[in-house]
């Protein structure tokens, strides 16, 4: 690349590279020269980070995929804990789900809010086809293709109304479809007198996967998670990833992207818009159904509530964080969010993570400058002073213990006000104040912002120690919600998504 002597030549060169980087054989849909130049300039970063980014982008996709597989294979070698293996399995499932949602949202541009219902349909279909519930025990190699076809057909049917619906209406219809799926499965123990779905109790004793007549037990003789399941899901992931990559490079893939950019223009150019929408729905649904089968087999049970709104938001956050439209991006998104959700389960780990993110965020925002030193010092002194004052008024307010988390926890217990028995009003008052102050902070500029930042950070630490650590479940979801809003406002293209510039 080399340095640029003249700043003025830079945008032009960028444009040249952007339009030719994919080679002359693959036209970039939705990017004319101006868009390419504009988008590429915003993406390009200067300095060592920019160089690193370019180096990483030069590594071919199959190398990354191989690396990922090697990591997955190494998981059981490095750790013999069933917990770690199970987490790896969950993340692999998330990666599959994110790939499927990427087809609908990232490529098709359709807001499908019923996506996890297809995941549920896959899980239920597998459970019905291979369990004692109806006494059917299909071999896995028959059951899985059947379930995938069922998923595709249902996705096709749900997509039918999408032919006439745009954006918001499609979202609400698919969201209702999810609700409908939950209603039917929860009440399905009395469907015209037949017990179809087992109701809220779900379906139990689902068969494990079997290959050529051999059952794969879900846990080894020692009761540890059977790592074969991780390998099966990773194999499915690789197949789906490669298949989707070819689909994306095909005529259909290009047509999808043009549909996303401008449905009307695509229609005018003679593309079968309705057919493309249905295809994208069916593709996404069949991938979701496929992931459902693995979960159903591993848990040897299915319940309606595993497929509800929180899971939908989780998968959406993965896709948006990674960058809708980028296959590698959504996989990274799935890994990041999957690990994050797992870390937040443990108070000690999540504490370390929380304060590292805050400190790193401060470094990223203020760089190494006097401002950074001032904020950190101010924060430290502010905390000490406040704790002294509060402790002098009532010593029970500062006598709480830090809990697990090593030195970080010890430090926090000496720095943050931690009441031994927090009153009921503390949680709502401190939390609402924190949210309000953080929102106001985004409106402030200049030195006022730095001054307000200090109490906001302290309050964040207070809320984290006293309110959020005790309730990991809502905390995880709150973080996902905030992440989704912040991403849409600050970086809608996510980590690796393509910047979209709209010309009006």
């Amino acid at each position, binding site marked *: 690349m080399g340095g640029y002597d003249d700043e003025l030549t830079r945008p032009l060169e960028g444009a040249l590279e952007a339009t030719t980087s994919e080679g002359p054989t693959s036209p970039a849909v939705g990017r004319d020269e101006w868009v390419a130049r504009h988008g590429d300039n915003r993406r390009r970063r200067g300095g060592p980070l920019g160089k690193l980014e370019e180096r990483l982008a030069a590594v071919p996709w199959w190398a990354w995929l191989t690396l990922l597989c090697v990591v997955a294979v190494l998981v059981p070698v490095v750790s013999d804990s069933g917990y770690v293996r199970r987490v790896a399995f969950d993340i692999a499932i998330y990666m599959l789900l994110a790939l499927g949602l990427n087809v609908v*949202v990232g490529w098709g*541009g359709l*807001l499908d*809010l019923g996506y996890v219902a297809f995941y549920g349909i896959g899980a239920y279909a597998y459970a019905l086809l291979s369990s004692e519930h109806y006494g059917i025990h299909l071999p896995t190699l028959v059951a899985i293709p059947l379930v995938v076809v069922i998923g595709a057909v249902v996705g096709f049917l749900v997509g039918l*109304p999408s032919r*006439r*619906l745009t*954006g*918001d*209406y499609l*979202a*609400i*219809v698919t*969201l*209702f*479809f999810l*609700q*409908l799926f939950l*209603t*039917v499965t929860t*009440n399905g123990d*009395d469907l015209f007198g037949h017990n179809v779905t087992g109701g809220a109790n779900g379906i139990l004793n689902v068969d494990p996967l079997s290959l050529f007549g051999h059952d794969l037990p879900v846990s080894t003789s020692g009761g540890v998670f059977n790592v074969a399941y991780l390998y099966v899901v990773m194999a499915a992931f690789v197949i789906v990833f490669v298949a989707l990559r070819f689909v994306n490079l095909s005529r259909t893939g290009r047509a999808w992207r043009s549909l996303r950019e401008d449905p*009307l223009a695509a229609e005018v150019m003679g593309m079968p818009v309705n057919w493309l929408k249905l295809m994208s729905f069916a593709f996404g649904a069949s991938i979701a159904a496929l992931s459902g089968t693995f979960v159903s087999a591993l848990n040897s049970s299915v319940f309606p509530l595993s497929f509800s*709104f*929180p899971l939908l*938001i989780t998968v*959406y956050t993965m896709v*948006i964080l990674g960058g809708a439209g980028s296959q590698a991006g959504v996989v990274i998104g799935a890994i990041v969010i999957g690990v994050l959700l797992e870390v937040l389960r443990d108070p000690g780990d999540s504490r370390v993570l929380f304060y590292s993110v805050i400190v790193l965020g401060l470094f990223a925002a203020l760089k190494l400058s006097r401002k950074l030193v001032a904020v950190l010092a101010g924060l430290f002194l502010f905390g000490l002073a406040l704790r002294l004052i509060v402790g002098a008024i009532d010593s029970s307010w500062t006598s709480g213990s830090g809990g697990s988390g090593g030195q970080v926890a010890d430090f926090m217990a000496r720095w943050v006000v931690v009441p031994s028995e927090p009153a009921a009003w503390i*949680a*709502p008052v401190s*939390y*609402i104040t924190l*949210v309000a102050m953080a*929102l106001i902070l*985004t409106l402030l500029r200049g030195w006022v912002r730095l001054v307000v930042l200090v109490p906001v950070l302290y309050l964040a630490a207070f809320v984290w120690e006293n*309110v*959020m650590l005790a*309730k990991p*479940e*809502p*905390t995880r*979801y*709150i973080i*996902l*919600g*905030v*992440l*989704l*809003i912040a991403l*849409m*406002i600050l970086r*809608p293209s996510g980590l690796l998504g393509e910047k*979209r510039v*709209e010309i009006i």
Partner: protein
Amino acid sequence: MDTFIQLTLNGLTLGSVYALIALGYSLVYGILKLLNFAHGDVFMVGTFIGFGTLQVLGGSTNPIVPIWLLLTLMTLAAMGGCAVLGVAIERFAYRPLRDAPRIAPLISALGVSFFIAYSMQLMFGAALKNYDTFSMDGGALYFNGFDIGNVRVPLIRIITIVSAFVMMVLLWLLVTRTRLGKAMRATSHDREAAAMMGIDIDKVIVFAFVLGSALAGAAGVLFALRVPTYATIGFLIGLKGFTAAVIGGIGSIPGALAGGLVLGFAESYTQGYISTRWSDLLVFVILILFLLFRPQGLLGKADIRKV
């Protein structure tokens, strides 16, 4: 016959609450063309504010103020609190995305909905919150009222229906008879043209959020008087409120009323005559039928797409 009257009454009560929620969707959609997913959660916050006010004023058995004042204060607190919440949502989650592709504010709205629901769960737990109106004044709200045939129409239903209708009439007067209402209608018709005529678009949008959220807050209290509430209730209720808005014709005030009532009656009769389990299914079928065959709703105007 008695069953029919009872079910009609239930449907009317339910429908008037749905109508109030539908109005919030309609107002915002009419002006911003944005489906505000978080509206159902604003409703949920309204039910919680009403509950909190009730506790502050001494609880339902021994309130420190007379019961009519208690109910008024609860409703006003919920309306005020929700209005502030609505303005904050608009300012911080939707305004930065006003010129973004249409899918962006929808996803942001999902995040807002999720954030609000689980923030409430973080602060107040996942347990049911019951207003326990039955112990107010020795059950006066349930035993007083008038009779139609053998069916007693209790005070609590009269309060819900009458206050919902009064609020809808006030809103209609506001939109049709005042300058601000005129500005709202103009903005809804053509935002850019309205801006060129000197209408402060930001003010109009904020006002739409204030009105819609305040109505959702009131609907929250009226709803929670009869049914216990919880932190994630907003999802389904919001979905139904939006369906009511679509059925009636999104953007139309009488339409929201009509849609709310259609939905309320449909749900009530299904629960009474068929099964309580499948009423959600019916709502979904009605929505699909309307979207496919009459997307402009009962009272809405057909949307002509210009290129």
